[in-house]
């Protein structure tokens, strides 16, 4: 596996404080990992090692948990997360075509990041907007009832300035 690192796995004061309050609670590992992922956008190798030391748990255990749950990411994601809902309603209404078109447009597969670090494509389970199916989320923005034709415009909207046409 690739071992991405943050240059210095420095934890912010808030993160350290969070760990302090959770340190002695039972079953705290997952909650702390959520908080770390919130800070870095993924779980950098160094950060997991640092966490292991702070709460005195073997790194192997943390790694075991990290790999079990889909929500935890071990690789740095792109600046924009493009999540295609693959709930049943969205599937019936053409979510698969959206995924195909995205990999066509961005030249990446599911769970991969574009070379310029701009987009990561993900397929997610029901985001609970079935009335709007099919649904694509970019970051926190939800786009409902869209077809493959609508994707280029959405991507263009989120592409950071300066990388146009990249």
């Amino acid at each position, binding site marked *: 596996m690739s071992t991405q690192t943050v240059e210095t796995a420095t934890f912010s004061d808030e993160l350290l404080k969070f760990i302090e309050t959770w340190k002695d609670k*039972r*079953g*705290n*590992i*997952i*909650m702390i*990992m*959520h908080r770390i992922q919130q800070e870095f956008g993924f779980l950098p190798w160094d950060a997991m090692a640092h966490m292991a030391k702070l709460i005195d748990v073997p790194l192997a255990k943390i790694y*075991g*948990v990290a790999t*079990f*749950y*889909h*929500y*935890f990411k071990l690789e740095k994601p792109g600046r924009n997360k493009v999540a295609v809902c*693959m*709930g*049943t*309603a969205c*599937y*019936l*209404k053409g979510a698969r*075509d959206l995924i195909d078109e995205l990999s066509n447009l961005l030249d990446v597969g599911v769970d991969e990041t574009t070379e310029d670090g701009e987009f990561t494509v993900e397929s*997610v*389970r*029901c*985001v*609970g907007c*079935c*009335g709007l*199916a099919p649904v694509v989320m970019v970051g926190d923005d939800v786009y409902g009832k869209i077809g493959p034709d609508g994707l280029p415009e959405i991507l263009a909207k989120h592409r950071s300035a300066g990388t146009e046409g990249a």
Partner: protein
Amino acid sequence: MAYSSYCLVCGGTGCESSKADLIYRELRRVAEERGVDNDVQIVKTGCFGFCEKGPIVKILPDESFYVEVKPEDATELIDEHVIKGRTVKRLMIKDKERKKHLETEDDISFYQKQVRVVLRNCGIINPEDITEYIAREGYAALEKVLFTMSDDDVIAELKASGLRGRGGAGFPTWMKWKFTKDIKHTAEEVFVVCNADEGDPGAYMDRSTLEGDPHSVMEAMTIAGYTCGAHKGYIYIRAEYPLAIKRLQTAMAQAREYGLLGDDILGSGFNFDIEIRLGAGAFVCGEETALLASIEGERGTPRPRPPFPAVKGLWGMPTVINNVETWANIPMIILRGGEWFAKIGTDGSKGTKVFALTGKINNSGLIEVPMGTTLREIIYDIGGGIPKKKQFKAVQTGGPSGGVITAEHLDTPMDFDNLTKLGSMMGSGGMIVMDEDDCIVDVTKFYLEFSVEESCGKCAPCRIGTRKMFDILERITSGKGEMEDIDRLEAIAVSMQKASLCGLGQTAANPVLSTLKYFRQEYLEHIENKRCPSGVCKDLVRYEIDAEKCIGCTVCARRCPVNCIAGERKTVHIIDQDACIKCGQCYDACKFDAVRIA
């Protein structure tokens, strides 16, 4: 009971004020008098959006639309239209006027058939203001329990209510509570857990309940704490539900401030508090023993049962675990009494059920109806039917653990037992409507793909079985299926049901078995004739242009992403089959039905 026609009386805001109710009662009276009340079902519906011509009465299946109906007209409508099948011209609207309103006329009752117990506060109170919950009898059940009821009283009330778990299995709630209550004095500690992992990819009632009415769940958990001797509760919720998490946090902070959580609640001497634990995107963690492992901070793999969590759960201690919807029912049961609750629903399934109605349906959304409501009522009266006049094919319930229900069973009352009898299950309440354009084999493959990804891998029958079944379905949908594949699917299914460790593996084959039972012919089409009747399986589809129908408008050729459609303007077009990627865009684009699936 099957009705041959339906008479819909608009109960919308506009019509109601102009005597709709009287008309409704008159129609019923006359129907009964004429002895046709078993043939025609008379229902009050929501607004048809045509208020200026109200009151409106609509008769199905022929969709006659009567306007400005008066109570006196009821006799004529029943005698002429329902009995003799002749429309009453004088009450019908002129076509021209009507067309103008066609768009809105399609709206149909969404709320009036619903009975909202679980969702009683959703859409009514501000979930971020505890006083609004309190104003609507909030925390009155807790008050009653703390000051006037013993643990046995609470359990007796639950038993009288007949409440069964809404998380899928339908286990009687009172029994679980009793198991734990009976051993509470010997246990070092007892826990209460709310299962808000909601993993079925077509269900979101739990999220909606927590977003709209978080206190109802917290109040119920506190009641369970008092009854079963717990002082600590956990809500295990998906990290993918940020709004629900935020509203829960706000609600918990307010409850603590008001002394409704924490030490010495309302001066009763009883202590109870709740903590949120986040899931991390693993479907199997909805299974109770896996969920408990996850709260403990472990990989979320299930444990063998027995021992059941009620006896040996979180950190080995007795644990009461219920689903969000189950919890949300409890304050009302305590306040109104078990008997009140038991009046709603069917013999074996009491109360209401919340369904997430989605897929090929006009009014998709969350609905709450009494147990025993028929699928027909749900799909046609509340859901407003199938869009674009397509043919209804089936409804999927129970998600990856469930199966399909077909047209012939539309009139079956929906409850735990009937669904199981039909080879599906209640599950968490996802209800996905499919029409003629959906391929049953493809949808089954979708669920199996889900189960392959979500199998935790701990036991072999599930880990290997789901993968093997998926591979076979993949073969069938790509035109490489063989007749033996059907037997193989059935053999694997049986061994998975028998040998898997947890519910995931035991039920993962249900979508296959159920669709094989009702749609075997469609499987055979794929295997023997290498044909996908609904045109979904791309490898089996061939698009052709009907020379009789094509007028040479060039729309399809312009839409084709690989430019494989040739033909001059006003001449018949032809698809180059070798270059065709079967994207189906020409099929969707043609306005003359000239592109067809061969």
